[in-house]
């Protein structure tokens, strides 16, 4: 079978940022920034072309990495779902970087910009690799890159709290990496393969014969818990507030919007393509994820209520949103999975918008984010304020915005299941949405409060770029909300082709 030229786009999406990262690291700061943005824009453009092409192609395909066929060499695999995720990840990363440039200048010394851009490109490459890889060990290697790069994106501000947050992030994530690696090793020992399809066939044989039941269950458990720690599912969320709350806005947007989503996408692939949904259902891991997802939905929102810092509130809100995604995964039905995927994409768009536009709302010379100093901040920075408002409304789930699409899909999936699980999801969804309304409206009320004197904002550079990024991210939120039907269709067909 010969491949068309457009089918090499996944290869380009992984290798372009990976290959140019080393080059970027040693360019002068200004050129590094330009190249980083250009590369991200290129990948976004290529991904957009790819989505259109694969939409009309209507199938998924594998792409051998080298001259050796499937069980011997590495492989990439692409379908509509992967294409959509790749596009959203690349676009959100580009806009986060663009929107965070102003604060980057203030938080990071100029000579370190090149290294920051290189790490961003490495992160982009590893996200694309998570999305497209068809090989568990490749996934692990890129998890390592992602962990290291993300920890540095937090620590790069080199303030005390940021270093502390990065250390904790590192510890939690290394434990999680070890768990995932353990899962890969056990799976290799049981099946003798590292590529997803051969493992899947072998695992189905094992599940049918009932052999190695305990190790298989442990594999599912360690992989799921490893990736759950990395994506901050509720009981493992303790690194989140520090990590998102202390890092520079571009880092926070990328970490909360994309890095955790990359891990969830990998978990989805592990469930769907490696272990198989029937075997997953037998292990009962879905119920565990559902339970913790629901707990996260409530506890994250409650904790967000009590925050007195804008960024920490957003961080806790992320914990709640990750809970939504895991609840969708835990439902285990096709509708639940597609709701989870749509929520993943919608949350990537709106949380990055929130962090980037919050960056425009900081007041004072050093950028205060305490609510007591933010009163009326949106009035003196209307564009950022509008972006923040749109993001907040999207998370709450107003119609025509991204959050509405995914929450509606989740509610429909839960209602279709019925039973105690479905009802629990519905109740938690309503409760968590009400809590969302409460804490976001309080933030909005403070931000738009008419005071005697409008607070001053720090003089930032790259104002046009950040304005552009906020506008584009707002439009992306509207797009996900308005184009809900085709998006759901794309995701459903993609999930169907994932097997």
């Amino acid at each position: 079978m010969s491949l068309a030229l457009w089918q090499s786009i996944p290869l380009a999406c992984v290798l372009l940022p990976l290959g140019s990262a080393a080059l970027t690291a040693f360019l002068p700061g200004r050129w590094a920034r330009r190249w980083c943005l250009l590369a991200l824009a290129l990948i976004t453009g290529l991904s957009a072309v790819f989505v259109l092409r694969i939409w009309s192609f209507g199938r998924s395909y594998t792409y051998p990495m080298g001259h050796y066929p499937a069980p011997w060499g590495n492989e990439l695999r692409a379908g509509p779902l992967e294409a959509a995720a790749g596009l959203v990840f690349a676009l959100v990363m580009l806009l986060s970087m663009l929107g965070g440039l102003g604060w980057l200048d203030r938080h990071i010394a100029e000579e370190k910009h090149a290294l920051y851009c290189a790490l961003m490109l490495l992160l982009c490459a590893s996200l694309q690799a998570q999305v497209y890889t068809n090989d568990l060990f490749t996934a692990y290697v890129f998890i390592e890159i992602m962990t290291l790069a993300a920890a540095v994106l937090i620590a790069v501000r080199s303030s005390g709290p940021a270093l502390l947050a990065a250390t904790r992030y590192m510890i939690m994530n290394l434990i999680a990496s070890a768990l995932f690696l353990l899962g890969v090793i056990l799976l290799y020992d049981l099946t003798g393969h590292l590529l997803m399809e051969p493992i899947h066939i072998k695992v189905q044989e094992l599940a049918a014969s009932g052999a190695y039941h305990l190790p298989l269950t442990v594999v599912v458990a360690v992989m799921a818990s490893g990736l759950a720690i990395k994506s901050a599912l509720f009981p493992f969320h303790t690194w989140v507030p520090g990590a998102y709350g202390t890092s520079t806005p571009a880092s926070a947007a990328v970490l909360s919007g994309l890095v955790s989503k990359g891990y969830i996408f990998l978990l989805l692939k592990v469930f769907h393509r490696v272990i198989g949904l029937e075997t997953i259902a037998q292990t009962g891991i879905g119920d565990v994820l559902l339970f913790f997802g629901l707990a996260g939905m409530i506890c994250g929102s409650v904790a967000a209520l009590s925050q007195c810092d804008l960024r920490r509130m957003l961080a806790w809100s992320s914990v709640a949103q990750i809970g939504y995604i895991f609840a969708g995964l835990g439902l285990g039905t096709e509708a639940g999975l597609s709701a989870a995927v749509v929520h993943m994409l919608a949350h990537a768009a709106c949380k990055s918008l929130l962090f980037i536009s919050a960056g425009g709302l900081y007041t004072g010379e050093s950028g205060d984010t305490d609510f007591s100093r933010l009163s009326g901040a949106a009035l003196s920075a209307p564009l950022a304020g509008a972006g923040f408002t749109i993001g907040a409304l999207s998370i709450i789930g107003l119609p025509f915005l991204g959050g509405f699409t995914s929450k509606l899909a989740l509610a429909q999936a839960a209602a279709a299941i019925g039973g105690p699980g479905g009802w629990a999801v519905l109740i938690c969804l309503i409760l968590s949405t009400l809590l969302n309304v409460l804490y976001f409206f309080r933030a909005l009320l403070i931000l738009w409060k008419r005071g005697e004197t409008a607070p001053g904002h720090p003089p930032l550079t790259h104002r046009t770029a950040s304005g552009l990024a906020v506008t584009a991210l707002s439009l992306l939120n509207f797009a996900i909300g308005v184009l809900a039907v085709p998006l759901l269709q794309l995701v459903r067909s993609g999930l169907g082709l994932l097997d």
Partner: protein
Amino acid sequence: MARVRNDFEGRRWQRFRAWLNEGDTSLDSLLMDAVDGRSSAPQPAPSAPESADPGAVNHLPLSAVQARRARAEKFSRGLYRTLAVLICFGLIGVLLATAAALPPFGNPDNPVHNEVSRRYIEQGMAETGAVNVVAGMILDYRAFDTLGESNVLFTAACAVLILLRLGVSDRVRRWERDLDARLYEPQNDAILQTLARFLTPMALLFGFYIVLNGHLSPGGGFSGGAVMGAGLILYLNAFGYEKTARFMNYRVFQTASCAALTFYAAAKSYSFFTGANHLPSFINAGIPGMLFSAGLIPYLNIAVGLVVCCTMYAFYTLFRKGDM
């Protein structure tokens, strides 16, 4: 939880107002956030609420609040410790049981002895041209993984550079100059220098030999690069930064790792692209056993070796604080 709680108003509405305006933290107790609170930076105590009537604020005696919080913190710390120990023992038990249930070690019927490893062992030399089958596996069959691995090293090097390299234009952190380890170098040591004069060339040569023969004998880029890096570190210790910087400095590090990684990515892009599209490629396995054989493998080994050597040296110099 370092923040002093100042608003324990009696009436709910006032509490709500205070929360709405100021971000009261008294809802914190709803969620056990002990781990988070203990290490987060102390938040500044909020200024007194302007809107709330100061007379309505009914402060509890501070000592009682503090005592209650100390008790809660002690309890949660104890809880976390107990749970951590219990979870560890549970995990140990589960993993031991799993290990016992795995296929027995060394059994020829194990699932890992399948067509994959058979082809690697039996046809590896013919297909990749590498006498060292392991080199054939990691640099040809599964070269994408190794590309990722060398980028893991590069990511780590970037991390160390961004965190520990002392800034040149960083005016705010000028005091850090005093931390520069290069100011406190040991004096000339005759024994160390004599030994290093003898050992450094040997180590570098041996490392280079391991790298070059990676496809012929055990070794390769990772191990050879580590030996070369160790040689450089030895020289650095014996002769100091100034002399080492004549041939190994930030510019050399830049050029070497940049060239190596870019070459690796470019070469493998070509090979991946031609492989996937079944295009003819000019890479051929050659005659196994020759120095210039095995297609791209020796060149990739050199690239990996350079990256490993540079990364090791960078780690060493930067963990002593200073520049390269």
